[in-house]
């Protein structure tokens, strides 16, 4: 199949970017989206042009590296699918494809389609953990955890930290990312001792990073390649309110 691409090119964080058009011919429908970009890059290298920079690694939908807005949707048209797992058979011959980086002031562009998502790391560093040193632990079966709680924790913990939620949100809010971690640890008995401090600290960090706020439009959960529910955001809000009503300080 033949495609028209419109790709965001930006030399580095300090320069202005713009869109460049490319034509690609004879793309196999069995290729993944990133393999299609590999073809583009080989083509660019062949004519002495700078290849398109994009983050990618595992190419099996779990590392969370890949991050691009494809035709106005994070990770492209297929639901519950990361860019690397998106295949060209989902497109048609002659399609125009617009490819942009995640756009958020908290995710500055590094080059082309690669953005800096270390704001997410700092949110986790602020409290997205259980404070247990190596060697502290008791036997794993000492604390039975009801299966529904363990399952709910697992569903929230499936977050791959790709940032599609921020990209999809009209406010560039990181609430789904933050809430997923708070819900994951909040469903588990091990997470209780630090539950309230955690939410206060993580929300504080999230706000300091310059993300927008949540207006509950739910575009985030629709964009999430792991299907994490925005109900977790409500859980975060509840934890936050409780922490405040109990006068807990972080």
């Amino acid at each position: 199949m033949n495609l028209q691409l419109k790709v965001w090119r930006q030399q580095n964080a300090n320069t202005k970017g713009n869109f460049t058009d490319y034509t690609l011919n004879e793309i196999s429908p069995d290729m993944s989206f990133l393999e299609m970009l590999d073809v583009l890059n080989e083509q660019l290298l062949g004519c002495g042009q700078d290849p398109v920079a994009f983050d990618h690694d595992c190419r099996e939908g779990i590392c969370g590296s890949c991050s691009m807005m494809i035709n106005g949707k994070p990770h492209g048209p297929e639901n519950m699918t990361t860019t690397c797992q998106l295949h060209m058979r989902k497109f048609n011959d002659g399609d125009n494809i617009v490819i942009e980086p995640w756009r958020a002031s908290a995710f500055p562009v590094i080059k082309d389609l690669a953005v800096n998502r270390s704001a997410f790391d700092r949110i986790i560093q602020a409290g997205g953990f259980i404070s247990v040193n190596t060697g502290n632990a008791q036997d794993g079966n000492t604390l039975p955890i009801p299966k529904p709680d363990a399952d709910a924790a697992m569903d929230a913990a499936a977050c791959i930290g790709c940032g599609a939620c921020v990209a999809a949100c009209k406010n560039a809010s990181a609430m789904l990312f933050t809430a997923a971690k708070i819900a994951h640890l909040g469903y588990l008995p091990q997470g209780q001792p630090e539950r309230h401090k955690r939410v206060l600290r993580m929300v504080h960090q999230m706000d300091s990073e310059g993300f927008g706020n949540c207006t509950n439009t739910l575009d985030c959960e629709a964009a999430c390649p792991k299907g994490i529910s925005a109900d977790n955001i409500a859980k975060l809000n509840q934890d936050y309110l409780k922490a405040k009503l109990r006068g807990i300080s972080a």
Partner: protein
Amino acid sequence: MILDSKIPSGPIEQKWDKHRAEIKLINPSNKRKYSILVVGSGLAGASAAASLAELGYNVDCFTFHDTPRRAHSIAAQGGINAAKNYQNDGDSIYRLFYDTVKGGDFRAREGNVYRLAQVSTNIIDQCVAQGVPFAREYGGYLSNRSFGGAQVSRTFYAKGQTGQQLLLGAYSALSRQIGAGTVTMHTRSEMMELVVVDGHAKGIVTRDLVSGKIESWAGDAVILATGGYSNVFYLSTNAMACNVTSIWRAHKKGAGLANPCFTQIHPTSIPQHGEYQSKLTLMSESLRNDGRVWVPKSATENRAPHEIAEHDRDYYLERKYPSFGNLSPRDIASRAAKEVCDEGRGVGPGGRGVYLDFSAAIHRLGEKTIAERYGNLFEMYERITGENPYKVPMRIYPAPHYTMGGLWVDYNLMSTIPGLHVLGEANFSDHGANRLGASALMQGLADGYFVIPYTIGHYLATDTGNKVGTDHPEFKKAEAEVQARLHTFLSIKGKRTTSSFHKELGMLMWNNCGMARSEASLQQALSRIPEIKEEFWNNVNVLGSGLEMNSALEQAGRVADFLEFAELMCWDALERDESCGGHFRTEHQTQDGEAKRDDQDFCHSAVWEYTGTNSKSIRHKEELKFENIQLATRSYK
């Protein structure tokens, strides 16, 4: 090269306790005076960095990813083994030890493996405490499954994302330390060179992948936890960036590299579907619990799978290995698939594939149960292939997946360069010639959480060397070497891209040093690799500059190292004139095509010493002694 494994004396059950009691400690208030450089932030790296920081050391951790949470440990699906015996089915530390040694085809060190089995139970406890959401039974207790050919249920899992959850557990522990300021994290930072001063590892040189800046970092010890080298085959189930560079650089600085030919080919990957393909995707081995593997009996078969009658199908694993059947170990299942495809009975485009059929299981258990067990894997398969595995049997084919070889380490996980410690897949220690399913996660975390925190203290307490800073001439020299290399890549201005060289090398290695190797194929590879290398250094095309994000430049460095490493791998495969585990020499097989070990001549680890660009490396031996398990032919019939 002196290879002292430093295995403590005494009964195997007491070796680790005895060792811990004897090794030197560092006073808590002195720990902060030591700085440790950890390269890699996967299971082994992140767990080590976090645990060492908790103890009070100053830790710097480096990853070439944008965040430590992306390391390829994240992609492990199936689970993690631990000798908990929660299922009351006869498991024990000894049995896990035994299974691992036997599974590794008697090419691993008993002492290390026993310790691995011992600490396996602590890993589960630690991860549960961190909030890793392992699968639970309705009573609230931890659930287990049988995995990868084990006859007991000792595998703990978190849906099909166990690696992800364990990595995020280690990442959370690491993040806690970063937040507390005890670990300094360096992201998008690739290790380019190891710095050795007076025979001790004292630092590394890195390249900032965004700014291109070359920087030196000095420390009292260096830990490499940089994973395996399956990408020497280009197409593998490893992530795109996985590479051999850090261990190869260390090898060139004097670290012994052990058993590079021990590579694992995983039997259940989605077959390759085109020339352009960039990687292979693994389907969890757990699928073999309910799926039946078959090919048509006739090579001329061209009907659709559901039209092929039962008596025209060959369930070859069940036929050849009646007691283990579809759950035969990885190397055996992989080779059996290759065999039937070589006979022309393979299915799918190109004939390199076998069916993994769930119709019997769906009939027996219902589609709902199968969807509960494997739903996410089925979806993934459909996403990639466009075929619905509930209706059409999956097609699978073996793919390079894990490398058992790596830098040689002693019982303290220290390489032949004092101060250089190597953890996880990057070392060679525990899996011998073949790794059992669900053991990679176990080893990575064992090394990081429960071994290195003890043993590194011993090194630091006994190290008599002086502290050096990055102003030491060795650092300047290493930096200059790195700069020169990068400059060379950029100035060749040839015609071919780095990935075309990588593909060419990968294809050669897969055909000649892959699932089956022979003297002829290896000789052929050994004559061809230098030619590819020669062309690479004269005709590679790397655009742009070194002072920006430049993925082609990053790749060039990695491919250059793969080209050198591949040669050593072939030498190792050639000189190991026996078949064992994942290393299958066609000259050495039994009448029915099983691997034939030669314990007389090859019951050792081969450790290679680098002697310079133009001279052949020297092969040393570390003899393996089996005092607790009797050497036996591995049989899964």
